[in-house]
């Protein structure tokens, strides 16, 4: 019966509709599996046992009455990152300051998932307030990579990625500010999509950096991601039909650009990552794509600009935690209330970003640092725009390095920000990007390939990803194997 949890959501949906499996049964099995594996992975902060069972019963009877005919997610257990508001459900952002916070309203995407009949099974772990790329800063402990629990799952959507990779949910919802969906998807060996900025409503997403944040789906295959995106963009004006209807059969005529600095000889890529990348390029060429290298002048500014803008916006977003209406507080004077909520309630990772962000917004620093970052951001966007007049897709390995172990990241010489260099561009320019599993390294750990497209090109992007997925022999439905590949 455990095999059922490894199947794609779109296959389970058919089984549910045909009555071969009941929703309640499925949810019970899923909850049981979570019980067993949570000790190892710690993907979840809150497991919604009763709510999920009740919703399962409800959805089951509605299905019997003929409802949810058009929904591919009816009865499917999904997990939600804990920075996405759910009415009366603890939404903690993995922070001490919000550890007991229960919103009085639902995020827009939650309403859409609930209308689709999906079963929300729990709220997943993350880096506190989404600030980080390892999931180590969570107040609720670290999440482990289900492929090998010595390794980090990545972040900040580490819990969402681990839940899907560990078969603890079929689909999960994450958020991506500089790569926080795609990097953990790559590290955990699953698919993660960051849609175009504001394609999906941010109403209810507790923000990290408002001009960079995006909500997106994670799943074990591309089609499940596409189905999730259909639900998340329900009611959007779409003249082109569903994202999950794949009409392209090959990549003939698709032009793909690759940054010319992406080589290990320039020190920008781990050699194993490069080898895997070149292999992926060959696969795409076999499908008909034309792949070309091109220069990207602004690439060296990516991480600094991302850091400046995200920290500045975060410092402003984080001001509201005063303990008056919600959050950590005690019955004392107002000035001290801010101290409790923030000084006591935030981790060092959060405080560092707030301090840095506030500093660069100060009058004497504004024009030299923050304003320069904004201007550079515009130049970066323009350079992408120019690139997309020549290319349909920009391709790169999702992360330059191999997934690190927890031991490695806590060591002194770990350079934490390398991992946003090839993902942050999509956030700075508001572009859609998807990470798809591309292979396994010599330690047996996953690697990912990132496809980035023009604004609002998700339909094409997902279809291209789907074709790659089908043609890559390294991709498997179940990624939890201990098999190690020897690259020859």
């Amino acid at each position: 019966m455990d095999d059922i949890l490894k199947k794609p959501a779109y296959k389970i949906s058919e089984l549910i509709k045909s009555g071969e499996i009941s929703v309640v049964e499925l949810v019970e099995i899923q909850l049981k599996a979570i019980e067993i594996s949570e000790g190892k992975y710690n993907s979840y902060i809150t497991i919604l046992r009763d709510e999920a069972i009740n919703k399962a019963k409800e959805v089951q009877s509605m299905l019997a009455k003929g409802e949810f005919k058009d929904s591919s997610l009816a009865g499917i257990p999904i997990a939600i990152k804990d920075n996405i508001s759910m009415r009366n459900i603890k939404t903690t952002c993995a922070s001490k300051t919000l550890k007991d916070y229960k919103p009085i309203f639902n995020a827009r995407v939650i309403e859409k998932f609930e209308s689709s009949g999906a079963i929300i099974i729990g709220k997943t772990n993350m880096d506190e307030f989404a600030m980080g790329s390892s999931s180590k800063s969570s107040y609720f402990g670290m999440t482990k990579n289900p492929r090998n629990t010595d390794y980090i799952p990545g972040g900040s959507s580490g819990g969402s990625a681990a839940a899907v990779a560990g078969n603890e949910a079929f689909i999960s919802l994450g958020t991506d500010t500089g790569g926080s969906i795609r990097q953990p998807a790559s590290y955990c060996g699953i698919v993660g999509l960051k849609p175009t900025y504001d394609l999906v409503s941010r109403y209810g997403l507790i923000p990290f950096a408002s001009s960079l944040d995006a909500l997106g789906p994670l799943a074990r295959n591309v089609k499940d991601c596409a189905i999730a995106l259909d639900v998340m963009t329900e009611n959007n004006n779409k003249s082109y039909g569903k994202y999950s209807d794949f009409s392209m059969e090959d990549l003939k005529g698709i032009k793909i650009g690759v940054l010319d600095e992406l080589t290990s000889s320039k020190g920008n890529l781990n050699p194993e990552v490069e080898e895997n990348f070149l292999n992926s390029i060959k696969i795409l060429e076999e499908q008909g794509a034309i792949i070309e290298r091109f220069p990207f002048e602004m690439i060296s500014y990516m991480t600094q600009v991302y850091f400046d803008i995200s920290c500045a916006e975060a410092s402003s977003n984080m001001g509201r935690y005063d303990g008056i209406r919600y959050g950590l507080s005690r019955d004392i004077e107002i000035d001290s209330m801010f101290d409790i909520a923030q000084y006591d309630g935030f981790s060092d990772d959060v405080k560092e970003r707030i301090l840095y962000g506030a500093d660069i917004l100060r009058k004497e620093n504004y024009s030299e640092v923050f304003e320069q970052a904004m201007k550079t951001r515009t130049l970066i966007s323009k350079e992408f725009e120019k690139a997309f007049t020549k290319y349909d897709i920009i391709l790169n390995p999702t992360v330059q390095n191999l997934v690190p172990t927890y031991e490695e990241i806590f060591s002194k010489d770990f350079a934490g920000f390398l991992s946003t260099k090839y993902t942050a561009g999509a956030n700075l320019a508001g572009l859609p990007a998807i990470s798809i599993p591309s292979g396994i390294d010599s330690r047996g750990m996953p690697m990912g390939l990132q496809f980035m497209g023009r604004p609002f090109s998700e339909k094409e992007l997902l279809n291209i990803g789907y074709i790659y997925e089908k043609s890559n022999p390294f991709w498997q439905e179940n990624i939890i194997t201990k098999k190690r590949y020897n690259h020859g």
Partner: protein
Amino acid sequence: MDKKYLTNIGIEVHAELKTKTKLLCSCSTEFGANPNSNCCPICWGLPGATSGNPWAKGSTRSGLSKTAIKYGVKIAAGLNCDIAREVQFDRKNYFYPDLPKAFQITQFFHPIGRSGHICFAFNGKNSRVQINEIHLEEDAGKLIHDANYSLVDYNRAGVPLIEIVSEPNIESSEEAIAYLEAIRDFLIYLDVSECKMEEGGFRADINISIREASSDQLGRRTELKNINSFRSIGLAIENERSRQIKILESGGEVAEETRRWDEARQETISMRTKDESKDYMYLPEPDVPIIILEESWIEEVRNSLPELRHKKIQRFTDEYGITLKDSKALTSNKAIGEFYEEALIEYKKISRGLDLATNTNIVNWIIMDLLALLNEKSMQIENAALTAQGFSQLVHMVENGAINRGIGREILNKMIAKEIDPREYIKTKNLGLIDDKSLLRERIIEIIKANPQAVEDYKSGKTKALTYLMGQTMKAMKGQANAKLVEEIIVQTLED
């Protein structure tokens, strides 16, 4: 006034715009509701409650108020400002319990209007105050302090405000009050704000500095806040001016600080100077899209500006020859001024000419009768049933002697409440002035017979007796007799 020192005053006005909903959500802006009842996650500043996704269809709770932007452009146009073609918002970050997001959404980098001016009459001359900039922003909540605790009401948080910042070229407390009245009149005339100071809908912060008459450089300024009436503003300015002069005379330096006006002690008191050089860490607001204004739309808004009060006053005195005092009274309310001009048009349709005397009568009818009657009923001309056409017909009838003025006023009273054709009314109620000579002569003969003493008095030269006989006649005729005729006939009869 101390001739040795000149005063420089700059004023920042905050006025609540009379939109139905808040700047960034659809909560009501109505005053006086139960605390925290006109609120939603957005204006409470709950985590994640952003204003709105520009791409999502069917989101009802969110979005930027179009009316607020329209009002902002209207005000900018009326104040002769350069109007920004792109509406952009910014965040002003600081901590205070009445500020739910810990930042205010305002316009710092690109205010909606820059470099404008306003003209107004002051001390018999035309004064002109330069406007540095005007911008849109959201209001904060309200704090109510008790001995051991404070309460926060977020109803006001998110209400759209216009902030109007003048250059510091106001030179006296009298001019400051005249300026404030001019701004208030202007906003009310534009129908964009009710400017109710008592409801917190109109607030003014005063920046004041003094300098020696010989110096060109502005002195150090203090900011005066929390003053709740125009009169108190005048007092506060005078008080602060004296205080600053005293400091300079004793060789000291004025400290740049914020002071509040203490009504009880009638003096300005320094507020805590802890946050004096506050750095608000401004940054562009990422959650509100930039709105691009089309030229044609701006033109439309510009063309929809009503004639402003000071221009109307000028025009009334020039065109209609009425006094300045009367012009002010007629324009105190925009609708009344418009009613007056409509009445003139209607009057000219009935009568070929409109001489100055008649014009003056019409003015008096409005100021002394109509306004008084409306006031009694606590009504506005807009909700009265009275039309300009009916009004002018009524006035014409009095001018022509068809009815008495007293009767006219009674009918006017009725016409305010109900739609009445005055000519019909007079006919059916038989209120017309009686000028049937034979009927009058009959009555008068009766009255004369009944008052022999009066006749005696008249014959011995007491003119008061004539007035008495007229009065008796009018009483007998229920006030409907043509007074002139009555006088004529009495005199005639007595001579016989």
